[in-house]
Each structure stands twice: as C-alpha cells, then as structure tokens.
C-alpha cells in the first residue's frame, strides 16, 4: 500500500511539475518585465513606433506586422482548407481524396525551416519579379508561405469534425435525395460549426506563434507597414532579433512586452476553444 501511495505521489508530482512549467514561463516574463510595468513604459510600448536613434522603443509596428501576416495567412488558407476538407470527407470520389488526406497529415511533419528555406529561394524571387520593386520579402510572401504551413491544422480539424457528423443525419439527407454538395451545406457544415471555429482559432494561434517564416521571409523592417507588399516584423521575429541585445537595455525589455502579449493571446484562444468545446487530440498536432 505504501508503494501505491508513493507511485501515486510521484505521478502527481510529475503533473505538478508540468503545470509549474506553464506558470513559470509566464511568471518569468512578468517578473523580469516588472520594472517596465511599474515604470509605466509598458503600455506606451503598445502605441509607439520603434525609433532606437531617439530612444523610443515601441512595438506597435510589430503588433501590426503580426496581425496582418497571421490574418492574411488565414484569409488565404481558410477557403483552400475548407475546400480540401470537404473534398476529403464529403465531396471526393476515387482514391485521390484519401491520398490528399495522407499528404496533409504528412505536411504536419515537414520542418518549418525547410518551408522557409524553400520560400527564400522559390517564393521570394517570384514575388519580387511580380511586384517589380522591393526585395520580395514582405507581408504578402510571408502570409502565402504561412498559409501553406497552417493549412494542415485546419484541414485535419475540419475533416475530423465533418467525419464526426452522425451517420444517421447523412443517411436521412441521402434518403431525401440530397446531392453531396447539398449535404455539405445543409447537414455537414451546420452540424460541425464548432469544429470549424475551433480549427480556425487553432490555425490562428499557430500563425501568430510562428517565428521562422516571418523571420526568414517578411523582411523584418521596423517601420509601420503601409501595404501588404511592405516588409514587416512580427512580435516573434522581434524576440529572435533583439534577444541578443544588452539585457539591461530598454530595447531588451520590450521583449517581455512581446512575450506577455503573445502568451495572453494564445491563452485566450485556448480558453475560447475549450469553451466552444470541440477540442480534440488534433489540437496538439504541431501546435506552438
């Protein structure tokens, strides 16, 4: 009986450690960023530009960069993902949809850095030629590549929730003579809207949290982007670029602000998806 207790306590301890890690990550950022918050500079950062020569360290351009890249990526990715998911679960015939499903699952295993590498040498020159000015490194390029990166998250989640629509409903629709497309619009999508929303939010989280694509493709300029063809810097890329700076400097401190924003955003998204209630194992497929 004593070993029973001991093992149970050990398991509990492991769980407590795992929870502690989550809390610590947030705690470290808050504590180290505390001088910033108490100093009052914290909230200024969200609205000021990044002008190191005038000792103004604001992260507003990075916030805009993050939101525009992630938002655009989602806008590109959502229709295609919806189409792919519909193809896989409802509309597709023949062996190809299954093959597509397999490809999508495999895509979750492709290293981000390889996407970025290919992006630099394929996508960026293409965009540069097409736009005719600039480096080709811009919000648009990064969003395109990011769209490919987050597509599997959405497709797998969508097709999972499409497939979990009760068979009886589908049979009923069949019996009434519904075509596959009618089934999709009148039965499948209305029944799985929770899954759709959750999938989109998860993909958004993944897009916001991605560092490498933006760092490699988006150009990292600190100016407020004026169009999607301008280079921009995301919060994540900002962390990667500035982390090497002087630890005591104000510019280093901005990292805590970036970190706290990202942490709070992803936490809110997690809480939202749990509320919506369509959380499944799928969410962990290469999230973060």
């Amino acid at each position, binding site marked *: 009986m004593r070993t029973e207790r001991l093992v149970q306590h050990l398991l509990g301890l492991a769980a407590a450690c795992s929870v502690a890690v989550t809390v610590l990550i947030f705690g470290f950022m808050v504590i180290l960023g505390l001088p910033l918050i108490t100093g009052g500079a914290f909230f200024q950062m969200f609205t000021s530009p990044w002008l190191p020569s005038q000792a103004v360290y604001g992260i507003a351009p990075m916030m805009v960069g993050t939101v525009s890249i992630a938002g655009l990526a989602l806008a590109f990715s959502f229709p295609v993902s919806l189409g792919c998911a519909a193809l896989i679960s409802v509309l597709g015939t023949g062996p190809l949809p299954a093959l597509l499903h397999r490809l999508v699952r495999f895509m979750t295993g492709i290293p981000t850095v390889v996407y970025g590498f290919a992006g630099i040498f394929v996508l960026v020159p293409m965009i540069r030629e097409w736009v005719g000015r600039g*480096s080709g490194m811009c919000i648009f390029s990064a969003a395109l590549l990011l769209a490919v990166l987050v597509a599997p998250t959405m497709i797998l989640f969508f097709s999972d929730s499409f497939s979990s629509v009760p068979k009886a409903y589908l049979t009923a629709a069949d019996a009434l003579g519904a075509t596959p497309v009618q089934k999709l619009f009148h039965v499948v999508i209305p029944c799985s809207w929770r899954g759709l929303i959750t999938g989109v939010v998860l993909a958004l989280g993944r897009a916001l949290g991605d560092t490498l694509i933006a760092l490699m493709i988006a150009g990292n300029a600190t100016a*407020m982007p004026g169009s999607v063809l301008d*280079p921009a810097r995301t919060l994540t890329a900002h962390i990667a*670029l500035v982390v*090497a700076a*002087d*630890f005591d400097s104000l510019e280093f401190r901005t990292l805590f602000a970036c970190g706290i924003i990202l942490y709070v955003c992803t936490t809110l998204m997690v809480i939202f998806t749990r509320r919506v209630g369509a959380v499944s194992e799928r969410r962990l497929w290469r999230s973060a």
Partner: protein
Amino acid sequence: MLRIGRRFYLIMAISTLALLLACSFPVLAGDLDPFAGDAGTVKISGGTAHIPVMKEAAKQIMQHYPNVRITVAGGGSGVGIKQVGEGLVNIGNSGRKPTDKEIAKYDLKMFKWAIDGVGVVVNPKNPVKALSRAQVKAIFAGRMDNWKAVGGTDKAITIYTRDEASGTRAVFWKKAIDKGDITARANVVVSNGAMKSAVANDPYGIGYVSVGHIDNSVMPVALDGVTPTLETVKNGRYKVARGLFSNTRGEPTGLTKQFIDFLFSQTGQKIAAEKGFVTVN
C-alpha cells in the same frame, strides 16, 4: 529519401557506440604549437565580419588538436561586447572599438588583429557604380527612393540595413552617413553574410557590408570616388574603415590567450589576409 534515412541511422548507431569509446581514445601527438596537450573550450561570439576568420582559425586548431573546442556564434558587435562582459563567452568580437563606458564597465582588453572597411554594395546588375556621400545619406534616410535619381534604371530602391547590435552598422552610421537617419522601412538582416546574399539576390537592393566580405556576387560602390577595396582601405584612401577587435574581460589567460596569440601569428594573419582583411603585422 529512404536511403539517406538508413544512412543516417547507421551513422547514429555508430556514433552512439563511438561516443562511449571516445573518451578512451589516445590524444594525437602534437607539434610544437602552443595548443599541444591542451584541452578545453573557447567560446566566441559577436561581430559577424569576424566569422570567416574565426571559423578558419578554429578549423585549423581543432583539426590538429581535437581536445580543443572553439565555438563560434554571431550576434553582432554589441552582443559580443555584452556577452564577454557578462562572462557568457571567452572572446567577444566587435567590428567597432568598444566605447569607453563599455571598457570601464567590463574591464575589457581589446585586440585589434585586422583592419576592415565598410563598403556600400549593390547588385552587380545595377549600372550605378559610384555615389556621393550626400546621395548615400539621402538613400539610406529614405529621401531618395528611385535608382533613376542617381543614374540608374527607373526602379524603386530596396534598402538593407543591419540590426542595432551590429558594429558594421555603427561604423557605417558614424563614418559614411555622418550619424544620419536610416529609414525604418529598410529590410533588416542579421549578419554581413546575410547582407551580402540579400543584395546579391536583389537587383535593386543597396546595403553596406564588411569589405572583407565583398566578392563578385555583389558590387562595391565608389564613395566620393573611392571604391572600397582591400587596397584603398590599406592605403587609407577609403575612410570608412574600422579595426576588427577581439575583446576579453581582463587579461586573457590559457586557451583564450593562445587563441588570440594565434590570430596575431603568421598563420593567423595569413587567414585574415585570405579572408579579405588588412593585416596589422
């Protein structure tokens, strides 16, 4: 694809085995080099202009003395100074002279083992071969945004700059554009290598890079009539020049000292010359 995988696993299996054996392997006999019989690690970070020389020096030393380990990271001059000051690395490289404040704060000892210039570069396809200082200032400040204005094609100028930790940026800012503005719309790259490949790939790009890094993939632009080359830096005609420093906290000792001595040795200086820098000895 699968074949590589298999090969990889073979390597993994063997390396795991070898890892166990590694400790028991006899040290290769050394020559009279001061590194003979030494074991330990030298950690280097900072200036990215230095990296080719550091890599080559590390290679030569480590190939002969496998027990000596030299790790080389980038980050930029600011990072190098900061990290060596904090004791995170043994040698912090900088492409600018550390400020008096930095020297005092960390008790830095500086070793200038080569002289380098910072040159403005464009893509080789660009017809613009020379710029005046005023033009360079205007371009980097974002006031002049078309190549047509400086005698090129009617295309927008893409500006590439370095991050704030860069010594190359600091020197360029101070000596080439007289502490003028650099527009925030500029693309930011993180090393001299990255600057070179960015400009090499962008027909309408302009940037600035360590003269040692200039090769035929990018084209140096004459500044007020002086083209940045090894020659012009050496004879002092090209003014945007700087020393390449390796800094230590306090007097270097042991392996760190030997490494710095190696940089000043004949072999070390030869490496520096090969990589396109002006030697000091």
